[in-house]
């Protein structure tokens, strides 16, 4: 993969790998993650406005397109709250590191995977668990009830949600025979009936379990008891303002983006484009075009999944935090285990 990146970026042959990796990380963040988060922020506001019979942002740019930019500019110029808790700053740093370390394993295409080992699918889970733990500690260091309760609730739902999600990942890895992104992508192809989600009935269950447990882990409404704007006013983030609030919101969008990209690659065929097209492009040595087309396909599917999640989250009332964990342990986990068993039998029957 490093060579592919080197050829795309037109770097000289002897560039140390570390430099290439750092460049790739920066490029993926700036050109893929950041624009997608901004676009997603805009689309969420317009979508929710449309559902609520409102107009939504319409002044900043054509049809309000630059609203996230003006939001960011506004937040940048605000002063942060003066009470700086050193412990909190440390945990905030750890949370940021955990979350953004996952940019390294973001599956953005078959040729541009930076880390393609069997563990690359599990790194985001590690990142999310550390994020949850850091939020818990941040909440405990704050002196307010909303921080304290918010931190506790975050830890509850964060730790809970990863269990069904991991089982669902196991389901996706079974037909592929491995967990590296290229294995999983190879097991699916461009046609929808080859996608893991539609291959067999248990795939659909696993996809739904994966998405819902993702909403639980990341705290997306209506399963966001930890933030719960109606009485906690934001939980651990209640006192944030200014650039920190901007980073917090951006990190929430990034979390959702990351989870949806994973869902698309694991269950919905990822970046697969029809075989004939890939062959033709590979023969003509135009790697850049392959990368762009695959990225485009991937992002279309990711946005579709994200918008669907936003729509469902808008119309459903929020659930209480203990009801969220009930949903997780009593509904999602059994269903994910059943689908794992079903998947195992199916795979054995198909290949055995």
């Amino acid at each position, binding site marked *: 993969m490093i060579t592919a990146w080197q050829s795309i970026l037109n770097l000289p042959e002897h560039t140390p790998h570390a430099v290439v990796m750092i460049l790739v990380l920066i490029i993926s963040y700036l050109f893929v993650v950041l624009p997608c988060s901004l676009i997603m922020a805009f689309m969420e506001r317009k*979508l929710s406005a*449309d559902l*609520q019979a*409102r*107009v939504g942002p319409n002044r900043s740019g054509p049809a309000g397109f630059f609203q996230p930019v003006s939001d960011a500019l506004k937040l940048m110029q605000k002063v942060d709250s003066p009470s700086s808790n050193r412990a909190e700053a440390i945990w905030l740093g750890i949370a940021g590191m955990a979350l953004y370390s996952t940019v390294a394993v973001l599956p953005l295409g078959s040729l541009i995977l930076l880390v393609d080992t069997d563990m690359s699918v599990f790194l985001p889970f590690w990142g999310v668990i550390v994020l949850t733990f850091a939020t818990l500690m941040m909440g405990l260091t704050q002196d307010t009830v909303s921080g304290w309760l918010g931190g506790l609730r975050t830890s509850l739902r964060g730790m809970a949600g990863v269990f069904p999600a991991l089982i669902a990942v196991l389901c996706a890895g079974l037909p592929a025979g491995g967990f590296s992104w290229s294995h999983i992508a190879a097991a699916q192809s461009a046609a929808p009936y080859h996608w893991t989600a539609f291959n067999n009935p248990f795939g659909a269950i696993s996809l739904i379990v994966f998405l819902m447990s993702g909403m639980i882990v990341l705290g997306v409404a209506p399963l966001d008891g930890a933030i719960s704007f109606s009485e906690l006013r934001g939980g651990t983030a209640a006192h944030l303002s200014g650039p920190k609030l901007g980073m917090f919101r951006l990190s929430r969008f990034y979390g959702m983006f990351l989870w949806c990209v994973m869902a698309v690659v694991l269950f919905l065929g990822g970046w697969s484009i029809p075989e004939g097209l890939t062959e033709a492009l590979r023969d003509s040595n135009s790697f850049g075009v392959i990368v762009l087309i695959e990225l485009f396909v991937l992002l279309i599917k990711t946005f579709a999944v994200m918008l669907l999640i936003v*729509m*469902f989250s808008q*119309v459903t009332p929020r659930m209480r935090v203990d009801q969220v964990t009930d949903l997780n342990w*009593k*509904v999602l986990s059994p269903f994910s285990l059943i689908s794992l068993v079903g998947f195992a039998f199916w795979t054995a029957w198909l290949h055995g």
Partner: protein
Amino acid sequence: MTSSVLSTLAEYFRDVFRGARSLFGSFMTALPYLLNVNSGDLRKEVTEQYPDPVSSKTADDLPPRTRGLLFNDIDRCSACRECEWVCPVHCIEVETQSVPADAKVWVSKFDIDFAKCIFCGLCVEVCQPASLIHTKQFEGSVYDVRDLKKSFGRGPIGEDQRRKWARAQALDEGREDPKRGEWPS
């Protein structure tokens, strides 16, 4: 024992089913808003965009009885002070100055403090000559709160006015020749 296990299982699946069903039900109810399927005005956006484009209501669209900012036509005002008396927040101040016997009443001061006015409409209701009315104007923001005290009065009587009255009286009493004028100073 078996029946209670079965019934618990049945209740569990019924719960899950109900949850999924109401999730989809709410979604399907809200979806037409997204797609504007029923393009009658039931599902359209209802935002009144103010002050920009024409979709916003202007003062003319308001109903005739709207209790907007007050206006007093000082030529019709008879300075009966009914409005000053009835106002629940005492925001109207009326002052008159004495005039010759047959001249019209001179309302020198008629101030309404819109910072205090609650737009209840009682003053308009009791105004006999119907000089005090509600306009439909609702945009009354100012930068200084003292600018909210609007004056409708004529101000103190000036020399010009006294001279006019004196000439009118002289004409009545026949002391002056109507054809002789006065050089305006």
